């Protein structure tokens, strides 16, 4: 009856989002009066997990699983869930996990809820809070099936440190045939992806053209942040679609979102609503974004941003 959580890795290294995921899953297991089992695939060193209260780890090592395939991975997780007799499975909100979750739900005849932001408010019926209407609202939803899959929203719960010792078990699983071939993979190197970032710096039409993006990129570099943009900016081709944040673009649930030269259309605000702290820099004091922000600077981006960057560099140098 344990809680099973699958944590993702990248080239053998545990993804940072995993620590939040296991912290949440640990609390869920406590609430259910059961134990947590963590599943890793092709991770050599799982010691980092001990810091977050993980006591039982199942390790799968198989080079065939180096490349993600939603069908094969969902089948593997289903095999593990049966092995551990888990009725609650917790996964992240990464694109891969969201891709795999519905297939896993069918494998296990489970109910699945995505974008979950809290622990269950009730266990019977199993009731849990998730975001809906693209962050314009929350919904209390029930999962009615015996097996339940919870997709935890990023940065919704936080990581809780709780040092323990863990034991691990190596498990052999059988693999389905690969039906979808990966011909090539292209990753933007040296840049933090929006999904992994604690801070996102975003630019809008107020920047006047793609040639001015250096001020966004410089600020992002200082902060170790990812960059994103508003819809008109990606529609005009100033920036790639993958940076478009908003209702029809990417959702951003980060700790700090800095919007520069973005007026704050309702669709954009919906996309960034679950970010914790929002800073707006805009020369129009009437920009609707100021109503949705925590901190605001009314001023010209071309003046404010480079000066802010210089001051942040000094701050970072002092505090590192």
């Amino acid at each position, binding site marked *: 009856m344990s809680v099973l959580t699958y944590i993702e890795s990248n080239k053998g290294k545990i993804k940072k989002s995993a620590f939040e995921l296991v912290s949440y899953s640990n609390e869920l297991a406590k609430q259910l009066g059961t134990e947590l089992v963590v599943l890793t695939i092709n991770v050599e060193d799982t010691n980092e997990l001990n810091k977050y209260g993980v006591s039982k780890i199942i390790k799968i090592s198989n080079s065939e699983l180096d490349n993600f395939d939603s069908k094969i991975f969902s089948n593997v997780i289903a095999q593990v869930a049966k092995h551990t007799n888990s009725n609650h499975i917790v996964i992240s909100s990464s694109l891969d996990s969201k891709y795999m979750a519905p297939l896993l*739900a069918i494998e296990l005849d489970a109910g*699945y*809820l995505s974008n979950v932001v809290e622990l269950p408010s009730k266990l019977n019926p199993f009731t849990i809070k998730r975001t809906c209407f693209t962050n314009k609202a929350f919904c209390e939803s*029930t999962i009615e099936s015996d097996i339940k899959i919870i997709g935890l929203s990023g940065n919704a719960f936080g990581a809780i440190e709780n040092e323990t010792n863990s034991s691990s078990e190596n498990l052999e699983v059988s693999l389905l045939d690969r039906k979808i071939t990966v011909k090539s993979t292209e*990753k933007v190197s040296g840049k933090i992806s929006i999904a992994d970032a604690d*801070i996102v710096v975003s630019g809008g039409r107020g920047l006047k053209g793609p040639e001015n993006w250096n001020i966004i990129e410089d600020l992002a570099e200082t902060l170790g942040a990812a960059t994103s943009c508003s819809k008109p900016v990606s529609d005009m081709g100033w920036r790639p679609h993958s940076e478009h944040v908003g209702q*029809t673009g990417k959702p951003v649930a980060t700790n*700090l979102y800095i919007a520069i030269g973005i007026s704050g259309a309702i669709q954009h605000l919906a996309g960034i609503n679950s970010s*914790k702290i929002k800073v707006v820099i805009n020369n129009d004091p009437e920009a609707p974004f100021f109503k949705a922000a925590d901190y605001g600077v009314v001023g010209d981006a071309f003046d404010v941003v480079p000066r802010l960057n210089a001051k942040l560099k000094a701050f970072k140098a002092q505090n590192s």
Partner: protein
Amino acid sequence: MRILVCISHVPDTTSKINFTDDNKVFDNQGVQFVINPNDEFGLTRAMWFKEKQNATVDVINVGSSNTEPTLRKTLAIGADKAIRIDAEPIDGFFVAKQISEYLSSNQYDLIIAGRESIDYNGGMVPGLIAGLSKINFVTNCTSIEIDNKSAILEREIDGGKEILNCDLPLIIGGQKGLVEESDLRIPNMRGIMQARQKPLEVLSPFSSDFKTNSVKFHKPAPRKEVKLISPDNLEELIDLLHNEAKVL
């Protein structure tokens, strides 16, 4: 090639979201409903296959008669036939189950759905259909080309993209990139007139199974007033982010 596009009928992106009946029901008063944007990118790509590769394009929706104007719009854009499964959708599984049952007696080479609907954001219907109907599945799909019985697709991944190859039949979760915003079509008068003559088939639901239920809604708590910082005092901003918000 036969294509089926799954259409969700959702509040327009500019809608103010409210609830009635003790916060149990979405308040659709004054709300304009549209084709789910992710589905519309897919529908527009399907039109390209119709024009360039002689595909037939059907659309399907699970919903009450309220969704018919949205289905008529897809016919006016150029779909050949619409199917409406006459049931109020309960959850993603309920919708996927209906469509999967429909697929068991109607063959399609390519099924296009949106990666998620912008109302419930479940992001699971195409994957659940794939699982139920045992067909290949690619979501966050930003490009698709079909050559004979095989597809080349581009999928967005965290921090990049990948190029995939698989056989049909196939279901995709589509999004912007399949076509550009500027490629989206506004129905013209001829299309609207033709749409009136096109078949819109209404079927009884195949099943009543569901797995989850939306019980109650809340709106986010109202925000505190924004703290304005003078552009001449950016140290204060850094100090607030460091000491008050604790995000630096």
